């Protein structure tokens, strides 16, 4: 493979990753079968898909945060922080120093439920301070100063007093802001946000999205943003990757994918929202007839076979290749079988 020049190499490149969960008395569950993603500084990639398709598992794998029985069976997770050597995170050990230096410091993560994701018995300030003292070795007092200014920056009113509050004393929105302050404490190159607004009400959700966009501009970080909500995607994403049952089926520039989805699953998703602008009708995605089969019953070939209205001979048996369509890529046999191309409704 030719060496990519420093300037345009992606910050994080997930290559052909498979993640399986082993269990003592059952066959392994391959929760994520084939994921390729690339993230660039200052850009947001949205990962969308129905519940259980493997979004969180993929995102957590980047920091080895899945349960102990998870194994990255195949593929590489290449992280290239500016001015440093590229490391394959997939090859690092869970509790290794090398990984711990990346966690929180270069790649930070925020979660869906800010209440349960913060320790109930430590103050918000202590939890943020810890991040700073851990990675930058600041003295407690200096760390607290930084914490207060971070809280101020993410829009927590009265940051001095709030730093001494416990999570249960804050509202959901403030808690998520505190989470964000914690994640940004060491100026990470990449922020992973796993449905950070799903547990919040509409107004707060919009505020948090605005805050994240604003902070991204200030910090120039890349963002991997997981959501169910195509409205959120439209608002925040530069690129989008659509997952179905452990596979990324379509990905690329968000306008391109939204305007001209080429994978039957993506098309069905798009049809499920009347107009993206009507925020009130945002729902969890379950737009397609039939139910998602479990990972055990996934066909050898395209994972969408059991529900796809266009399924034909090769679908069940052969995995479709990544095929460029316009400005993005999709995995569907309809796109490669020249003869059938005409049948794909554009």
């Amino acid at each position, binding site marked *: 493979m030719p060496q990519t020049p420093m300037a345009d190499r992606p910050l994080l490149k997930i290559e052909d990753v498979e993640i399986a969960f082993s269990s*003592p008395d059952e066959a392994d569950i391959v929760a994520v079968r084939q994921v390729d993603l690339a993230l660039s500084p200052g850009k947001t990639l949205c990962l969308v898909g129905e519940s259980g398709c493997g979004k969180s598992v993929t995102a*957590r794998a980047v*920091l080895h*945060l899945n349960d102990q029985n998870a194994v990255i069976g195949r593929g590489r997770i290449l992280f290239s922080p500016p001015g440093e050597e590229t490391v394959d995170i997939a090859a690092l050990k*869970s*509790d290794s120093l090398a990984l*711990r*230096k*990346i*966690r*929180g*410091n270069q790649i*930070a*993560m925020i*979660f869906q*439920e800010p209440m*349960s*994701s*913060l*320790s*109930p*018995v*430590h*103050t918000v300030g202590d939890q943020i301070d*810890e*991040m700073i003292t*851990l*990675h930058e070795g600041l003295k407690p007092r200096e760390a607290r100063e930084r914490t207060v200014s971070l809280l101020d920056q993410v829009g927590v009113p009265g940051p001095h007093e709030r730093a001494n509050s*416990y999570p*249960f*004393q804050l509202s959901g929105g403030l808690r998520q802001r505190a*989470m964000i302050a*914690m994640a940004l404490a060491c100026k990470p190159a990449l922020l992973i946000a796993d449905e950070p607004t799903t547990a919040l009400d509409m107004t707060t959700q919009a505020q948090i999205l605005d805050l994240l966009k604003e902070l991204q501009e200030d910090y120039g970080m890349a963002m991997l943003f997981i959501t169910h909500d195509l409205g959120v995607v439209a608002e925040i994403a530069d690129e989008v990757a659509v997952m179905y049952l452990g596979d990324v089926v379509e990905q690329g520039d968000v306008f391109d994918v939204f305007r001209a989805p080429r994978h039957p699953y993506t098309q069905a998703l798009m049809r499920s929202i009347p107009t993206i602008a009507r925020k009130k009708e945002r729902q969890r995605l379950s737009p397609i007839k039939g139910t998602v089969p479990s990972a055990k019953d996934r066909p050898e070939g395209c994972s969408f076979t059991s529900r796809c209205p266009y399924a034909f001979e090769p679908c069940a048996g052969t995995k479709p290749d990544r095929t460029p369509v316009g400005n993005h890529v999709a995995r569907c046999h309809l796109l490669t079988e020249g003869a059938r191309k005409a049948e794909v409704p554009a």
Partner: protein
Amino acid sequence: MLRFLVGRLISIVLTVWAISFVAFAIIQLPPGDYLTAYMAELSAQGERVSPAELEALRRQYSLGDPFLVQYWKWISGILAHGDFGSSFEWKRPVTELIWGRLGNSILLEGLAVLVMWLVALPIGIYAAVRKYSLGDYLATVFGFLGLAVPNFLFALVLMYLTYVWFGTTLGGLFSPAFERAHWSLPRLWDFLTYAWAPIIVLATAGTAQLIRIMRANLLDELKKPYVTTARSKGLPEWKVIVKYPVRVALNPLVSTIGWLLPTLVSSSVIVSVVMNLPTAGPLLLRSLTSQDMYLAGTIIMLLGVLTVIGTLISDLILAWLDPRIRHGGAR
């Protein structure tokens, strides 16, 4: 916090008063009194006491008075000059009899609790973190053994084994030379050479239970998202575990401190008898069978007071550990 303390103090005073009343009532419950029990013992030995003599004794001890009058005499004596009455059987003030033995009990059982926590917590943490590992299974097996083997049996086995292996007899808490001496370093050392065996015996069952509770609590906490957050910060795994989930899993354990002492005292009676320990348990048992009412009443009341104090301490620790309780804002 101050209001919390004042409120607790008031309720403690009321509770202790209620305990004293109930304790006094309980020891009056069995038919007869010390003199009837004493009479029965004398006549079993073939001696006779005339009814007139008996009546004189009864008046002397004011056993004929109504319950409330007796209670009033007892409690006012305690409040006025710390006089808990006299033991009929030992013919000595109750306070003289009790302090040494109660002190031994508290010391012995305090040490047993300490050993229990020191042994059980690390094992419990290990068993939870390495769920279904060999170590976890071993801990479970030993835990069940510890629970299933009765204390006194374990004590007997231990006594037998030390006799067979080392030729020493276990029993008592001090060598004769130190029996009545004041506390000093050599006496403490003497105490420890005797006390290790009862401490181990007393600690086993509790340790087994504590391991199971700690393991279960921690397993619950380990699944919580805040643990993942801590991990995602880049903390070393041991620090993630100890600083976050272990800390939270300890809270429910702390609230058990309050009733540990009385449970240990009552559960240690048989062990104390078997191992000939000068603790409060056997004294209580003896005083109850002989209806030595002031002695029994005082021990029961003091155990109650200790429970109340223990509960207060555990509440304070809990409030200190858990901000949700301290700020009264738990959801």
